[in-house]
């Protein structure tokens, strides 16, 4: 094979100048791309890891039930044995992280629900709620009192209502059980002889006979705080109380 002589290279002047400009532009591009633009603009994985770090750094508000046991041993111990054992403290007391961080600051005092409309958020009757979940009708369930006056929130149980008479007087007992008089013993109003148990009709229990009997709790100025008050001297004087109010569910 014989060598073919190549023609002498003759690059025109304007092409050489263009070449210089092209090299300068390419160089400038490389400099800007490499040093002037910050890496997170070029790399999506860097963008993502930054976003992940930002997400991780967000503040926690709900502390988690484990944080409460350190100081509130009594309440937590009580709660562990009751029907609310699977509830987190935050379920009722709200976001507690601030309180955990600075427990002595009064501003961070946890919310303690005492209103009557708090518990029905879970326990009011609703046809969509699962069967067996304890539900009540807030309109007729022992009205006028906050739930905590009968139920311990950390270990809720049906309150100890007097049971003695319910074996025979079940209907009255059931009615009274969810009424404002739920916690009153039957003997508060009825004096019952022991013989009543063996000869019910032979030894009948006493019944209140006067307005003043109800007035011992309900008259204006009497000591019993939880009872609604009326002025016996002016309140429907013609009638006896039980002509309008059924005593077992007043």
């Amino acid at each position: 094979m014989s060598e073919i002589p190549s023609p002498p290279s003759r690059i025109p002047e304007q092409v050489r100048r263009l070449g210089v400009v092209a090299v300068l532009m390419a160089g400038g591009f490389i400099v800007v791309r490499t040093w002037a633009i910050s890496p997170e603009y070029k790399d999506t994985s860097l963008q993502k890891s930054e976003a992940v770090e930002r997400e991780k750094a967000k503040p926690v508000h709900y502390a988690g039930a484990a944080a409460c046991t350190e100081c509130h041993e009594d309440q937590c111990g009580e709660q562990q044995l009751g029907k609310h054992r699977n509830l987190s403290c935050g379920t009722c007391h709200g976001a507690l992280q601030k309180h955990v961080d600075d427990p002595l600051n009064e501003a961070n005092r946890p919310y303690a629900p005492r209103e009557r409309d708090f518990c029905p958020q879970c326990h009011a009757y609703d046809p969509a709620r699962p069967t067996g979940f304890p539900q009540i009708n807030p309109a007729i369930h022992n009205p006028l009192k906050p739930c905590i006056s009968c139920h311990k929130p950390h270990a809720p149980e049906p309150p100890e209502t007097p049971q003695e008479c319910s074996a025979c007087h079940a209907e009255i007992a059931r009615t009274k059980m969810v009424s404002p008089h739920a916690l009153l013993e039957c003997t508060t109003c009825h004096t019952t002889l022991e013989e009543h148990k063996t000869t019910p009709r032979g030894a009948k229990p006493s019944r209140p006979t006067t307005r003043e009997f109800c007035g011992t709790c309900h008259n204006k100025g009497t000591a019993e705080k939880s009872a609604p008050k009326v002025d016996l001297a002016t309140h429907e004087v013609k009638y006896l109380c039980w002509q309008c109010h059924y005593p077992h569910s007043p």
Partner: protein
Amino acid sequence: MQRRDFLKECGLFLLVTKAVEGLFGAGAAAAEEPAGTKAGGGSGGESGNGGDHLYGMAIDVDKCIGCGRCVEACKTENGVPKEPFFCRTWVERYTVKTDNTLVVQSITSAGQKSDAPVEEKEIKRSFFVPKLCNHCAHPPCVQVCPVGATFSTKEGVVIVDEERCIGCRYCIQACPYGARYLNPETHTADKCTFCYHRVTKGMLPACVEVCPTQARIFGDLKGKASPLQRFERMRKIHTLKPGLNTEPKVFYADLDGVVR
């Protein structure tokens, strides 16, 4: 041209291109190394893309009492506007009437406890279904984002980068579960993150933490035994809209066929 010259020039060309590529690639490669939390893959979210954890949630539909505590806790924990309509998680009340018509109501804020929509006599069956982002393995919202502001982390959690989101609402339209909303304060898309800031610290998501009946179960789908894995083993599991092949990571037990 001689074969020798041809090969020489080819070699030179390859060397130069490699050098230029190295120059550009160096910065990015160096940055990738220390980022321990680097999201796996630009495609955004094959399930199990290299993390130690793969988070998921199960919902025991029969246990939900519709109290709305989860909604309230989520809003408090994540700074979601308190008004109804804006929510990362919500509870739907399904009521099938005796004539088989369906009524669906959403509880989207605390204390928005709606009464049963129909007379009790007309109800055939009724139940609550908690809803949230399904953290799909193939998320439609990630596909449509024009600026790459939403993506799957290596733990399988779909999150929004609120500094890159332009608020175009494409993802809100694309989500088949309606799990996204436009935050009226930041004007960016917002959604459930499985409380990423909590779970990475070993805590439970706020909604799971406060659920009084344990209707929500959170856990790791990878590795060790967890309540979630036990739940998946023992119960009949369904996901929402399985026909869309989104492969949700939120599993429902005893889900009624009318739930959409």
